[in-house]
Every structure is written in structure tokens, then in C-alpha cells.
């Protein structure tokens, strides 16, 4: 029991949608992943890749066409794990006529929470998602972001061990997005597992411990974030205004140069940190503006585009 458990495990999980009488469409095909406990797991992919489909399979809202899976050690769809999970759906909808506390009271009761415990929990959560001052609004008077916040609150009611988030930052203002991120990080801090679906790669990259890239219903790439992003162990220097003269000077040191993009930012790559600093110094001495010196991690965006476009080719 000392080893790290597996929160979610799927094996060849496949969902084929039926379209019309004959037509079929693969929502997600042959998905085999493992999500270790206590990690933030990001499922990324373009629109229509099958992220929501996967999530619904894991929640038992959809039934797999083939393959199998386990959540918290229980077979998919079993009502027994639902007491220990939370779910923030994509574009959440609620009973329109209720206000936030009423709504949370209803959902809380479904978890068997009652009385003072429940009231206190509701107050805490409304504070956490920044809705305490607008609690008396009815749901149909909510903005999209406010709904999203309530959705997060209801998902946390039972202090879940595993939480599923589908596009959690959609509709949130920058402050909201940051709060969201803090909530997620805090969950990890407390040893919870988070399963995140998004195509907002910039938000995902700094949070996730592990990512899986899906596209058109197929799993393209999966692994710990560092493995996925750090293709080589090199360093890089990002700078603007790199003159041809400078280039010549550093020619021997750099391992590659990425030509300036639209903003004039060029990337100069070096094998290790020492050489990278050398490159940066040289460039700065020649009047270039050095923006960043750091490990040569590809951005998730780059990896993603590679993977997805690579698929577009075949």
C-alpha cells in the first residue's frame, strides 16, 4: 500500500457514436492511460478530439463500446466511486430557479450532507470561488463565469479525492482563471487527483504533472509533462534585434538558431547553461535585447501543433 496508487486506469477504452441508422463516429478510440493518485492530469486536444467523451465515459454518463476502465479501483459507472469524486462539466447548467446556496444544499444532500456541516461547507466554498457576495442571485441571473464558479463549488462539496474538470477556465475572467489555478494546485497539495480537460494549453502547461494529447478520437502522446516538453536537454536564449554580426560571433557556440518570428524574437540554442549564458552575453553586448535564458523546453503549444499537424498529414 506504500506505493502510489492509480486513480484512473483505462484499457482500450472506446466509444463509437452512432449517427443516424448506419453511420458511426469514433468519439474516442482505444484509450489506454493511467492517472496516478495525487497528480494533475491534463487531457488536451483540439475541439472534437474526444475529451468530453472520455470524461463522460469515466463518469458513467456514457457506456464504452469496448474496452474497460477503473476509477478509484471500481469499474466504470459504479455508483460507489461517485461519492468520492467531483465533476465540473463543460458549460454547466443548473436548476434556474435556485440560488447558489439552495443549489449547493440540494447537491450536498445528494452526498448525504446535512445540517450545520453542510451549511458551513457551503459558506466556505462560496468564499473560495468568490461568490459569497452574490449568493442570493438565482442561477438564471448568473453570468457564464458565475455559473462556472458555482460549478466548481458544487464539485468540491464532498471534498473529493478525484476531481474531473472540463474546460474549467472557460468563461472565467483573469482573476477567476488564477483563482481556479490556485484551487487546482491546492487540491494537489492536499493529495487529491485532478483530471483536467482543456485546449487552453497555456493554462495547462504550468499546472499539469502529466498530459495526454488526443486528437480525432485517438491518443497521440502521453507522459509526464517534462518528458513531453523537454525534447533535448539543451538551453536556449530568446532575444530580439540579433544582428548578423552577433550571429557570426556565436556561430561556434550555438547548436541551432530559430529565425525571428513576427515579433522579431529569435531563439538561439545552446548545449548547456554555461554556453547559453555566453551566447546571451555576446548578444547583449552587441545591442540585442535578451528576453529569456532558460532550458530549451518546447511549449506545450509547439508539441501540440506538431502532434496534431502530424496527424493532419496522414
Amino acid at each position, binding site marked *: 500500500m506504500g506505493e502510489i496508487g492509480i486513480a484512473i486506469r483505462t484499457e482500450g477504452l472506446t466509444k463509437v457514436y452512432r449517427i443516424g441508422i448506419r453511420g458511426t463516429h469514433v468519439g474516442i478510440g482505444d484509450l489506454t492511460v493511467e492517472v496516478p493518485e495525487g497528480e494533475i492530469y491534463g487531457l488536451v486536444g483540439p475541439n472534437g478530439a474526444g475529451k468530453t467523451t472520455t470524461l*463522460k465515459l469515466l*463518469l*458513467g*454518463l*456514457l*457506456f464504452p463500446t469496448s474496452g474497460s476502465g477503473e476509477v478509484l479501483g471500481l469499474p466504470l459507472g459504479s*455508483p*460507489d466511486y*461517485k*461519492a468520492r*469524486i*467531483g*465533476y465540473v*462539466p463543460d*458549460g*454547466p*447548467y*443548473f*436548476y434556474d*430557479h435556485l440560488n447558489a446556496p439552495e443549489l449547493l444544499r*440540494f*447537491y450536498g*444532500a*445528494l*452526498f*448525504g450532507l446535512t445540517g450545520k456541516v453542510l451549511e458551513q461547507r457551503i459558506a466556505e466554498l462560496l468564499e473560495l470561488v468568490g461568490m459569497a457576495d452574490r449568493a442570493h442571485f438565482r442561477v438564471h441571473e448568473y453570468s457564464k463565469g458565475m455559473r462556472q464558479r458555482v*460549478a466548481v463549488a*458544487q464539485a468540491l462539496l464532498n471534498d473529493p479525492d478525484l476531481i*474531473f474538470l472540463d474546460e474549467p477556465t472557460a468563461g472565467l475572467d483573469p482573476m477567476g482563471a488564477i483563482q481556479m489555478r490556485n484551487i487546482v494546485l491546492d487540491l494537489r497539495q492536499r493529495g487529491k487527483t485532478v483530471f483536467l480537460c482543456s485546449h487552453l494549453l497555456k493554462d495547462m502547461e504550468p499546472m499539469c504533472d502529466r498530459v495526454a494529447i488526443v486528437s480525432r478520437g485517438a491518443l497521440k502522446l502521453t507522459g509526464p509533462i517534462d518528458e513531453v516538453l523537454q525534447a533535448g536537454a539543451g538551453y536556449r536564449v530568446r532575444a530580439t534585434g540579433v544582428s548578423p554580426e552577433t550571429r557570426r560571433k556565436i556561430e561556434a557556440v550555438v547548436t541551432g538558431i530559430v529565425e525571428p518570428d513576427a515579433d522579431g524574437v529569435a531563439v538561439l540554442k545552446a548545449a548547456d547553461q554555461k554556453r547559453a549564458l555566453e551566447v546571451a552575453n555576446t548578444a547583449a553586448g552587441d545591442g540585442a535585447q535578451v528576453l529569456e535564458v532558460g532550458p530549451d523546453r518546447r511549449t506545450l503549444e509547439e508539441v501540440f501543433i506538431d502532434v496534431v499537424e502530424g496527424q493532419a498529414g496522414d
Partner: protein
Amino acid sequence: MDKKRGAGVAARSLAIMLLLVAIGLVALAVLNLQGLRLLFGSLALLLVGIAAAILLQPNFRAIYRVASATFFEARRRRFMNVILIFAVILVGLSSFFATLSPSAELNMLLDIGLGSIRLCGMLIAVFLGARLIADEVDKKTVDVILAKPVRRAEFVIGKFLGAWITVTCFLLVMGVAFFIVYQIKAPQLVAKMQAVGMALSLEETSANVLKATLLILFEMMVLTSIAITVSTFASWIFSAVFAFTTYFAGQLSSYFHHIATFNDKSVAIINPSIKMFSWVIYRLLPHFEFFDIREKLLTHDPVYWEMIGMTAGHGVLYSLVLVALACVFFSYREF
């Protein structure tokens, strides 16, 4: 842990044993051994119910929460209030028709009053039943609920109970309104009828009005369960249309029985396949006419509680069987 599992296995074996006994009882009921069909059938139903409860172990708290949420939500639907106001007006109007004879007038008061209650109850039962689950699915509110520790069957049963409680409340409001109107209008009519030597008493007719209203309650339970069951696999419009059609066809169920069992060749020869068809229809259709005691209302004969009890019991059991079917359908639905 082991103990718990052991208890689970024991409960399951018990349930399976009960089901086997139930199958035997159903066989006896079908064979009509000793003419005790009713006893065997009822016992079998009881056993199936207990076995289902043991196997599924429903979470009554979840059912209760869903039901009460449904009730509070339903009350806010605007069309319900419109129907309620409409009904109370109709019920009030029923006392304004004057005719030649007091007996026709009493008859009219009863028919129009109870008819309005029934009509409005029917509209509420059908539209509520058809839309409750469909709306949750359309608005995707069901996603969040089903991700909570609520089983789908519990959700359906909760919805059904919530709908029925709502319908019941509306019927009670309408029933009280009509009973007041009746108590104002009926005594003078009854007195006039007694004066010409007709044997009836105000107490008995009033009791009949209450019993008729009570039966409408169970009638609407069956109607709600039909609407809900169909709405678990079809659109709400289809399910509303289906429920209305079934309602009116169900009034004809005794005709199907009549055709199926008609044997007087001197009067008419009925094609055996038509007979067979009628028999199947008779067995499948809910017998909505059971809830109609109008004949007794017209003749002012007493309606026995035994009859009311059996009819209501039949309504409840029929609804439960349908709702069980709804649970099965809903459990296999994807969102």
C-alpha cells in the same frame, strides 16, 4: 470487510430465492390453482418488490431529495398556475348551469366539476411527466446529478414521486374548491330530489364526490408514470401525445375485453386474429376506466371502500411496474 461481503452474498441469495418463489407463484396464478389467482399474484408482486429492494438497496434519502427538488421546481412552472386558475374557475362555473330537473342539475354539477378536475389533472400529469426528465436531459442538469452518488433508478423514482406529489397538491386544491362549491349547491338540489321521493342522502353523495376525487389521484399517478416512462426514451412531445392517446384508448379497454371474449356466433362472428389482437391490447392497456365511478355518482349508490382500495392499489402497482420499466430504460440511456 469480509463480513460485509458475506452479508452481501447472503442478501443476494435471499433475493434470488424470493424471485424463484415469485416465479412459482406467478405460474400458480396463471394456472389459477384453486381459483386463488389474486392471492398468488399479489404475493408474487410482493416478493418481486422485496427482492428488488434487497438487490438494489435504494438510497431513500437520494430519492427523497430528488423528489422534493422536483416538487419545488415544478411549482414554479408557469403553465401549472395557469391550469390551476383555469380549473378553479371551471369548478366554480359548474354551479351556474340550471336545467329542467334538480336531478339533471346535480348530475351536471358533478360531471362538470369532476370533469374539470380530471381534465386539469390530466394536463398537469401529462406535461409534467413528459417534461421533467426531458428537460433535465435537454438542459444537461442531469449530468451533474448523475455524477453524484445517485443511481439512475433513484433519479427516475424521485422524479416520478415529485411529479405525483405535485399533481396531488394541485388535485387537492381543485378538489377542495369543488367540494366547497358542492356543499353550497348540492343541499338544495338533494332536498328537491328527496321531495319527489328519490332515495338519496347528501352525506352519501358528498362521500361519493370525495371518493371520486381520490380515485382521480391514482388515475393521474398511472398517467404520470406513462408520460415519464415514455419520456425516458423518446422526446417529451412524443411522450405527451402517447400519454393522451393511451388515456383515451384506456377508457375503451373493456371493449377490447368484450371483443376478445365474445362468443355469441348468432350475433356476430369475430375474426380470431382480431380477438387475439384485442386480448393483447386489453392486457397491455392501462385500464383508465377503473378510476371512473360516474355510474355510481349518477345513481347515488354508495361506493364501497373495498372497490376504492383495490382500484387504488391496482393503480399504484401498475404505476410501479411502469416506473420500474422507466428505470431500466433510463439506466441504458447515454447523455
